[in-house]
Each structure stands twice: as C-alpha cells, then as structure tokens.
C-alpha cells in the first residue's frame, strides 16, 4: 500500500510519515528510510542531521539514494516498510542530473520511470510512505526549468495519489485526509519537539 503525504515546509510531514511507517510495520518488520537530499551546504547538512536524530530512537535503516531508485528496489521485500523522503528532492535530482532538462519529452520519460520505480517498490514491500511538498499554489515561474520541474512533479503527484490507499495534506501539523481512511500513525496527535 502507498501512503502519500504532502505539505508545505515545516508542516510536520516527516513526523507524521515516520509515525505512519512505524504503525504499518508489524513485529519483526524492518523500517527503511530512503533519504534523497544531497548535502549541498551547511544548512542542508543541519536539516539532514535533524531528521537523522528524529529517527535514531527507532529501528530505522537509512539509504542515501538521491536519484535512480531502481538501483535499490530489489533489496526490499514484504516484511519491509519504506519511507521515501522526499519526492521533491528525488525528482529534482533526477531532472537536473545532466543538461537534458530542457527537453520536455525526455523529462516526461524520466517522470514515468520514477513512477514505475515507485510502483515496483510499493508492490514489493508491506508499505511505502511517500513524502512530498506543496509548491503549486504560488504561480508558475516563466523559466523553463522551474516550469518543467513543476509540471513533472504535479504529474507524479496525480499518478501516485490515484493509486494511493491514503493521501494526506499536512497543514500546521494537522493531517488533512484527502483520500482513504483516517490513517495509521496520524492519530492521536502526539506532541512534537521543535
């Protein structure tokens, strides 16, 4: 099953996604965290440390995979629950890994490949929780790179939500369920540490 969680920055996505993955995992299952961020500057490194600390208490195995998910898909099985954090980074790293991002057809193909890998991952595992960002409500910049990036991400969001069991938008730490049942791990509201 796929659980899709989107939201703005600092809206509590990761916290709810981790709780959700933990709730999906049964006794003896393994929890996996696919980290997609590249350490580009000190602030980014700090964000990564923040997320690592959050997970240390649990039984997580972390995979650093900024792009090309299919390289690791075959490592997962039915007793694994995977958290992919986050699709926004993954898609940026896929799209801008070389100089071909201006070619719309190639980017469509790349988005299709990302979607295929996500479906593969979901079908192999007990649960796949995908975190992404809401960045579609501030207009569309006129530069081609951002336009194609948003177009591809929007397409991915629509495909993923269509096959998700649960789809959530986070708002001020509150999960708003857009699709499916009130999901695992989002209830009750646990106090969070900022």
């Amino acid at each position, binding site marked *: 099953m796929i659980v*899709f969680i989107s939201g703005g920055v600092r809206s509590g996505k990761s916290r709810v996604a981790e709780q959700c993955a933990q709730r999906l995992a049964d006794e003896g299952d393994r929890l996996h965290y696919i980290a997609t961020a590249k350490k580009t500057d000190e602030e980014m490194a700090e964000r990564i440390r923040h997320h690592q600390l959050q997970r240390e208490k649990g039984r997580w195995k972390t995979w650093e995979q900024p792009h090309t998910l299919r390289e690791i898909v075959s490592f997962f099985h039915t007793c694994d629950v995977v958290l992919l954090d986050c699709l926004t980074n993954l898609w940026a790293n896929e799209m801008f890994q070389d100089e071909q991002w201006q070619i719309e057809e190639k980017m469509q193909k790349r988005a299709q490949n990302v979607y295929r890998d996500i479906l593969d991952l979901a079908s192999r595992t007990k649960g796949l929780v995908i975190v992404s960002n809401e960045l*579609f*409500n501030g207009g569309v910049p006129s530069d081609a790179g951002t336009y194609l990036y948003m177009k591809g991400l929007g397409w991915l*969001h629509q495909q993923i939500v269509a096959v998700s069991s649960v789809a959530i938008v986070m708002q001020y730490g509150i999960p708003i369920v*857009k699709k499916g049942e009130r999901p695992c791990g989002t209830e009750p509201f646990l106090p969070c540490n900022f």
Partner: protein
Amino acid sequence: MHFVSGGAFQGKRKWVKVHYSLANKPHIWCNGYEEEWFLPNDHIMEQIVVFEGAEQWIRRMLDEHGQESMKQIVSYFTAWKTWEMGGERTVVWIGCEIGQGLVPLDEKERIWRDIVGWSYQRLAAMCDRVDRLWCGIAERIK
C-alpha cells in the same frame, strides 16, 4: 456558473473534461493561455462554455485596463452569467491558484496577484459551484 481552481498541475483541465463528459458533448473550450477570451454572442449554439487560464486572462485585462480592470473583469463575468441564464447553459471557469507563494518583489507581479485574488472572490460569489483540485481530487467548497 462553475469555478474550478487549485494549484498548477493538479489536474483541473482533465477533471472538467471528465466531470462534464466533454468527450461526447458539444462545447466551446477557450484556452486563455493561447487565445483571447470572448464575450457572449448570438452565434453560440453549444450549451457548455469553458474558459481556461483565468489568471492569464486577468493579466491581459490588467495590462489593457489598468485601474479600471476590476470593473471590466466583473462586467465580463456578469455578461456570461446573463448568457447562462438564457437557457440550459453552463459556463465553467478554470483558474490557477497563484496567491499562496512568496510575495513577489516586482510591483507589477504583486498587483497582478492581488487582482487575481479579488477576481476569484468575485467569481466564486457569482458561481453556484466552486471546486478546488488537489492531485486530481476535487474538493467542493461551494
């Protein structure tokens, strides 16, 4: 009238096509990104008219009419509302949400964003139904 909004790339166009079964229904589809919008006239035989790209059309209205643009925009909506009431007709407006990002540094961009917000408010008030799309899922908010 029916206003369909939501962020960019959320499946607004596709949803309208499915919701109104446009594949097998005569209709007029006016794409505001590529062509000019138009006012109602006696030659329209179709019962459904869809206007897409409201935010871009509003931008052109702003360029053309400046401070008068709000008045012009509202009278445009009113003209279509009147047309719709003249028969078994539906006018659908599709507009992209652009007001929930950073406040633009450029004054013109800021004014455009404001006018789009106000226009959407006026439009929503005149419409019988308003939907907001998210990832292909419509949430009816009016």
